[in-house]
């Protein structure tokens, strides 16, 4: 295991928390382990280990190999680090984050918004047009909201993400 894999431990910790970071560090050390082995080695309850392993799998930071226990008939899962190169994992996350923010930006740009000065809730045009532009919760007259600050914030974040070089 190379030093590059350490990036995966940092990433796992930032996304899924301390236990995730410790699991990845353990997998870097031993290569492959079952949930029970991880639980014993790290002194963490097995339910937590299983939950975090599933989260790490969703984020494509770990993979597993499934082996059938011939005697007992159930499956054993051997977990290991992802085979993907860390840069690729980061690029993939960047691509997904950009896509999510762009979809949000598209929505913000194609709608106008109103807010309730009394309860502070924000509404889109479609949500309040039928209600004569009154707050559906407290009946206060709604005021138009300038959406440019939100779109600018999103555009800035998208631009920043697109400009980052991971290598």
């Amino acid at each position, binding site marked *: 295991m*190379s030093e590059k894999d350490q*990036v995966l431990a940092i990433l796992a910790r930032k996304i899924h928390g301390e236990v995730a970071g410790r699991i990845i560090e353990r997998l870097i050390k031993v290569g492959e382990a079952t949930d029970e082995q991880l639980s014993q080695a790290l002194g963490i309850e097995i339910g937590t280990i299983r939950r975090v392993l599933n989260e790490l799998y969703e984020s494509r930071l770990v993979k597993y190999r499934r082996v059938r226990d011939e005697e007992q008939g159930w499956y054993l899962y051997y977990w290991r680090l992802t085979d993907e190169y860390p*840069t690729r994992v980061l690029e993939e996350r960047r691509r997904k984050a950009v896509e999510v923010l762009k979809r949000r930006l598209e*929505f913000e740009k194609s709608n106008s918004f109103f807010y309730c000065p009394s309860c*502070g809730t924000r509404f889109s045009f479609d949500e309040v047009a039928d209600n004569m532009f009154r707050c559906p919760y407290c009946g206060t007259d709604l005021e138009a909201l300038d959406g440019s600050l939100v779109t600018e914030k999103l555009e800035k974040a998208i631009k920043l993400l697109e400009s*980052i070089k991971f290598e």
Partner: protein
Amino acid sequence: MQSEERELKLSEGGGEQLEKRVLDIVSAAGEAGVLQRDIWRILNIDSRKGSKIIKRLERMGLISREVVVHKGRKVYLIKATPKLRQIPKLPSELDEIPCFYCPLLPVCFAGDLARILTCEKLNRWLLDSYLPPRA
């Protein structure tokens, strides 16, 4: 998207982590590089399977392949590119963007717009600073 999924399946290689092992071998060889056929020998794979992996890693810009003459025969020498030698960095600016480190990013990416619109974390980041104070 589809072709990427196909590629990823290929990369699993029956759980043998072949790509990763090739990268480890190439990295360890340093500046001198390693002969392609030596990689096959170390990993005990045939050239058909190995060539696919090498081509894929070359496309990703992680390794370079050059023809050299070794003992009178033309062979491929595989070297690590600067991209492979470098350790990826996590720039601190990423901390300011709520989605990048969010555990639910894959779910939002695969889900519908309603999910993105109702995300509490994203809404707080976007709206809290600019919504006028309550009367």
